[in-house]
């Protein structure tokens, strides 16, 4: 079979995410492309969690509505997801907890009998799945060993028992091994962290917040390996204040948060604009306003990020849509932040941050471009007026340089002034920098396309929506255009990629079509919009339906 979608569901605390990852690991070992979607409410126990693991022979970047195998650790999973079943789908379940038709096994009893905690059901069910798919047991063992570090033997024993029990079940699906090596599975959060390190990251500060908390966890775990300072600060204002201090002191800094935390950083963002502090901010979008749906996804903060901060100052907004783009985005963000001494915001979202994809981190080279540095000649002036608006940098500790950073308007030395002429020159310095940024960005291709490049129907997308859109376009034979940088918009390249388009359909995870607005303001006509704002990501099948209605 060419592709397979498995949904595993249960309560928070049932180890669903862990089980999903193990299933993904199994299918990955078989050489399939993997996409793992996680769906969970903002609670630690109870409620309903599920993962969808989709495996395909071809590259995929999205999960699907419909599934082939439904694995239920509780009854809710059946109730909520039976609508996803196809004619031929199979249900695997714990018959001690769930009533359903299909492959039921007494897993609760099995675990109990072995004196193991209920969460071990997720190991048992993995083994059942493996048996039913005809996967060799040694692969199950391998996956268990690589994912657990406690009670490994006990888990393998349970797995053996469950595997043997299920071995004789009907094999509805047989998974043929593909001729691909297993790939490295990675979440968007890990990719952002690794990309930042490739761009020279030296300092990471954060305050926990879904969906980017795992960036903090990952970097804290690996701080020695990457030679980083990692701080969990008192709150988000402390986070960005510290990062700006570190950047002023010459260290490449990044912070990560989502909308509510970003809101608290807005005053300091404006400081980065005035004082010209290089800084990268990961903004992991989730549905607002306010606390909203904290563990779900959305794309509602493009305009917020674009205009956040009092006063006008240049910035770059990057919107990666898949795992490789996330690595590159975080790397390039560092280099651009330092090249232009500006804040760079990475617009991620829950769907990108927490979904797992096969990744190629080694194919993306590290690249730490030197910033424009002071040559040590004459008197140092932090805000020297230059042709391109970019002043050479020096840092405290450098003999001969007095480095004065200022949140007021200031003269070239960084001394406060309220003179109209100097204020004007500084405003123009910022305008020049914006022009320099546009010029630099033109050197790089920043608009991707998918699907049929000649199609007259174009889906305009950004960020994680790209995954579902690319696949829908593939199926319908239309074209996808995805700007990687959403500000400043790569207008010329967009024009090129739109060439021949008769109908441009914006597809976004928000209620107003925020990118559509920007693209329209740049002079392109948006003919229709497909918007989603219930916290759930698009799937290819859903998009196919919606696009069909329009074209």
């Amino acid at each position, binding site marked *: 079979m060419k592709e397979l979608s498995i949904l595993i569901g249960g309560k928070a605390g049932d180890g669903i995410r862990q089980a999903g990852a193990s299933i993904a690991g199994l299918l990955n070992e078989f050489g399939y492309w993997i996409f793992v979607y996680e769906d969970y409410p903002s609670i630690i126990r109870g409620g309903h969690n599920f993962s969808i693991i989709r495996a395909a022979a071809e590259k995929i970047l999205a999960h699907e509505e419909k599934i082939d195998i439904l694995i239920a650790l509780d009854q809710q999973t059946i109730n909520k997801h039976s609508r996803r079943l196809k004619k031929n789908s199979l249900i695997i379940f714990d018959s001690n907890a769930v009533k359903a038709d299909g492959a039921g096994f007494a897993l609760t009893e099995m675990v109990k009998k072995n004196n193991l905690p209920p969460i071990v059901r997720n190991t048992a069910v993995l083994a059942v799945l493996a048996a039913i798919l005809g996967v060799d047991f040694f692969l199950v063992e391998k996956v268990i060993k690589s994912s657990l570090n406690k009670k490994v033997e006990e888990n393998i024993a349970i797995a053996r028992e469950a595997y043997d029990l299920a071995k004789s079940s009907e094999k509805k699906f047989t998974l043929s091994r593909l001729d691909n090596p297993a790939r490295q599975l990675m979440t968007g959060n890990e990719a952002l962290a690794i990309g930042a390190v490739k761009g020279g990251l*030296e*300092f990471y*500060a954060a305050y926990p917040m879904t969906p980017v908390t795992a960036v903090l966890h990952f970097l804290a775990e690996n701080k020695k390996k990457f030679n980083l*300072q990692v*701080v969990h*600060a*008192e*709150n988000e*204002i*402390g*986070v*960005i*204040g*510290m*990062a*700006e*201090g*570190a*950047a*002023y*002191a*010459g*260290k490449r*800094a990044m912070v990560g948060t989502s909308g509510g935390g970003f809101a608290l950083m807005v*005053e*300091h963002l404006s*400081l980065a604009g005035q*004082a010209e502090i290089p800084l990268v901010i990961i903004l992991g979008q989730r549905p607002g306003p306010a606390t909203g749906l904290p563990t779900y996804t959305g794309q509602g903060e493009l305009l917020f990020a674009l205009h956040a901060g009092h006063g006008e100052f240049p910035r770059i907004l990057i919107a990666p849509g898949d795992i490789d783009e996330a690595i590159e985005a975080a790397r390039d963000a560092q280099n651009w932040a330092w090249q232009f001494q500006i804040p760079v915001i990475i617009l991620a979202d829950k769907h990108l941050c927490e979904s797992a994809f096969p990744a190629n981190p080694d194919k993306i080279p590290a690249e730490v471009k030197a910033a424009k540095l002071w040559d*040590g000649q004459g008197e140092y002036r932090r805000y020297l007026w230059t042709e391109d608006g970019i002043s050479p940098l020096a*840092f*405290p*500790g*450098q*003999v*001969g*340089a*007095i*480095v*004065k*950073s*200022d*949140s*007021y308007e200031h003269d070239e*030395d*960084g*001394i*406060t002034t309220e003179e109209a002429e100097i204020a004007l020159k500084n405003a123009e310095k910022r305008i020049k920098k914006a022009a320099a940024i546009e010029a630099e960005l033109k050197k790089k291709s920043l608009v991707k396309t998918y699907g049929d490049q000649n199609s007259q129907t174009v889906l305009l997308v950004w960020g994680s929506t790209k995954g579902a859109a690319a696949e829908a376009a593939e199926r319908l034979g239309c074209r996808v255009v995805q700007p990687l940088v959403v500000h400043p918009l790569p207008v010329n390249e967009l024009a090129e990629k739109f060439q021949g388009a008769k109908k441009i359909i914006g597809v976004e995870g928000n209620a107003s079509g925020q990118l559509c607005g920007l693209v329209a303001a740049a002079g392109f006509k948006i003919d229709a919009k497909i918007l989603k704002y219930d916290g759930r990501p698009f799937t290819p099948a859903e998009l196919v339906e919606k696009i069909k209605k329009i074209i």
Partner: protein
Amino acid sequence: MAEAQKNITVADLSTACPNTWCPGCGNFGIEIAVKKAFGELINEEKIKRENLTVVTGIGCHGKIADYLNVNSFYSLHGRSIAPATGIKIARPELSVVAMAGDGDAYGEGLDHLVFAAKRNINLTVIIHDNRVYALTTGQVSPTSPKNFKGKSTPDGSLDKPINPLELMIIAGATFVARAFAGDAEFLREIIKEAVTHQGFAFVEVLQPCFTFFNTYEYYRGGVYHLENHNPADKSAALEKAREWDYSDSAAPKIPLGIFYQVEQPTFDRLMRE
């Protein structure tokens, strides 16, 4: 590469920026004390000039960033401590001095101050405590006495002041001192001690605001230098800190000096272990 200058004078540490504090402002005393302390520390080779980095908030006090010819980060209102923390974590070899107003450090950005003390990060914090929001033309601040008649409380403020020394001692600061801007020589000494202290050093400076809260006489009548006080004794430090409660009580006894000083591992050092 330029070479480090020897024999730094107060003039070397001064920029050409015209000073715009009111005549009689307590900030002048702080400015001269800071410059002398910095100059001496550099000349005594206790710190390197190029490593000296000052961070300020916004308020009358903040203008000192423009007047000091050293590395400076003139931050936002209430936000000198977090950038100072970031600078120190990023570059532990730097000598970082954060300066803040009372509105700044005890109101707008109190969180950062408490956590810097809690971390015992190796910074010096100098508070220009004029007990009023001066640059915004005279409103009640966290250390204003109760019943303060500022422009936002024309009938008198309703709550009592906080006691910053007590707060810092319990929050984890390992050096806690108070000085008076009217005695720049003593302040200079305290600042030298604070900067050389390994750990979070907090210096509260009683700074009369000539225009909006002229406390010169009040302080002159009340301040005295701590003597026979053991700064390693936390209870004694707390007791001394409570001797004056920042009220406008008549005939106050206001101790100045180092209330508390102990050595403890610093956050910036522990981070690199």
